């Protein structure tokens, strides 16, 4: 991937991060860390990998995303708004009564949302169903399911992983964001990258590894439109809890930390500064 293209994506991701911080700062209902950790994965999908049409969100041949990870809907909403699926104004009423943007995802309520989401343990199964449905309709659509570590310890995740491999669902790609959700030593269920790699492989999946905050790395790990083989693909992406906001990057764990006004302003300032650095880098390029 060209350096300029990467910088463009990084700039988009910074804008999405700022919107996430503003959304959560206004709504004061959830913590920043989980959303910030998946922003780059979602931006990479919507701005580079996936074929979507914001002017026609129901287009049957579109690629789709299922967000299985809990407490991450702000990241998806900010990405969708940035992509043009709906007005950014909607972001500011996140989780208010009657709002278009619900805490748990509702297809049909929000343009661009392809599946219910935010229900731990159910994402992969639904993604497999959509992938199967698209293939039966002879559509080349691909389905991306973004999950966290917790998703893989709950619900029907492994049942669905087994079934998807048996059905040879090559148009299904599960991206696992690994990092921070289960701090080392705090739970016996969190698995290392190596363990997960072995597990997915033994179930018959093609496994690739990525840096979840490096657009070039993500681009190479996630299969392109013509690259679907018979096996579903698992991308194990190393992510950082609260990526982009220094005081959050130190935190780990799924504990809900609500940012106060001071923290929100500090975070925005930090993201602004990162944006200026990127801008300079862009202009320095020959």
């Amino acid at each position, binding site marked *: 991937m060209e350096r300029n293209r990467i910088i463009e994506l990084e700039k988009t991701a910074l804008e999405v991060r700022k919107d996430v911080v503003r959304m959560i700062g206004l709504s004061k209902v959830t913590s920043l860390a989980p959303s910030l950790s998946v922003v780059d994965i979602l931006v990479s999908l919507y701005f580079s990998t996936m074929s979507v049409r914001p002017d026609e969100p129901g287009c049957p041949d579109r690629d789709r995303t299922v967000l299985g990870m809990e407490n991450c809907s702000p990241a998806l909403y900010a990405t969708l708004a940035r992509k043009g699926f709906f007005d950014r104004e909607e972001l500011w009423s996140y989780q208010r009564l009657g709002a278009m943007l619900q805490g748990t995802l*509702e297809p*049909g309520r929000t343009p661009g949302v392809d599946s219910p989401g935010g*229900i731990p343990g159910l994402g992969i*199964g*639904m993604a*497999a*169903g959509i992938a199967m*449905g698209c293939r039966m*309709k002879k559509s080349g659509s691909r389905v991306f399911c973004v999950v966290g570590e917790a998703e893989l310890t709950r619900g029907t995740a492994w*049942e669905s992983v087994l079934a998807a491999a048996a059905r040879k669902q090559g148009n299904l790609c599960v991206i696992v964001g690994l990092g921070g959700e289960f701090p080392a030593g705090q739970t016996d269920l969190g698995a290392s990258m190596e363990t997960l790699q072995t597990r997915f492989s033994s179930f018959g999946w093609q496994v690739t590894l990525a840096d979840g905050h490096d657009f070039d790395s993500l681009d190479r790990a996630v299969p392109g439109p013509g690259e679907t083989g018979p096996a579903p693909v698992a991308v194990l992406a190393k992510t950082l809890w609260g990526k982009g906001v220094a005081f959050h990057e130190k935190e780990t764990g799924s504990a809900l930390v609500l940012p106060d006004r001071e923290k929100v302003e500090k975070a925005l300032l930090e993201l602004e500064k990162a944006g200026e650095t990127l801008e300079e880098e862009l202009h320095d390029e020959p």
Partner: protein
Amino acid sequence: MSPEPILSPTEAVGPSLEILAAEDPSFVVLDLSTDGKSLAREADSSFRERCVKTEKGERDAVLLAAGLSLAGWNVFVFAPSPLLVPRAYEAIRSAVAVPSLPVKFLLANAGLSGNRAGAASQMVEDIAFLRALPNVSIIVPSDGLSAKKLIENSGSSRNPVFFRLHSMKLPTLKRTSETDLELSGASLIRAGDGVTVCACGTMVHEALRASAILAQQGIEAEIIDCFSVKPLPAQVITASVRRTGCCVVAEEHNSSGGLGGAVAELLCQSSPVPIKFVSVQDRFGQSGGAEELLEYYGLSFKEILSAASQAWTMRRR
């Protein structure tokens, strides 16, 4: 012309789905039959193509159904009620009922009579589970023919529908009105002004048996086949009890949360009259033949008879 063979509502699933498959290009059914059989066993090849036999877990199958529905398919799921409802409830709730996806569930072998193996394989509380879900419809057909028509009519439904299907081969009931079996409707099986009997599934047949004896005693029972447990055919029921002044509800389901509860919730608000219930008395099932079990658990015309006489003596006019 020889009469059509009598099918149980569970057996009616195959023929009705074949018709839907032929009519609707987006039709697909997930077949979770467990007894080694398949819905598409004797069917033509066009139906077989749309019949996905899955032996994977029930929860995964429901998620798969939700995904297929999101991808634009008209999805039916055929599975035994005792396995699907308790195991997949979370998936049914979060992935189908909350987003109100139009997935249709054909729950086979429901009730005590559906399985002779024993308590764990007999589902007497499924209506209670499902009736508490907003957005859904629950249909409990009484005979094979009405089951077939109702399943066919559900093809165009825009919300989740659950069919609770018994597996007894019972005769086709004569319906007084020739109107179509609309999903949210009810059929008048027998007109009368003595006592209203609301029944569903196997119990409609027992109610009809009881009505003959009641008539000899001078009590004319009005029998309503309340196949639509949700939404309840409120107008039909209230109009009837306003004439009779009393009501009996009979169902092959536990005493809490079923049709009885639904009718009581309706009538105590709109037209309070004495109601008697014929249902499973808060017990799980056990091994036994279908008829034996129904008799042992007090689900026969005899209980309906005595409930009707008691309700009639307390009737409010």
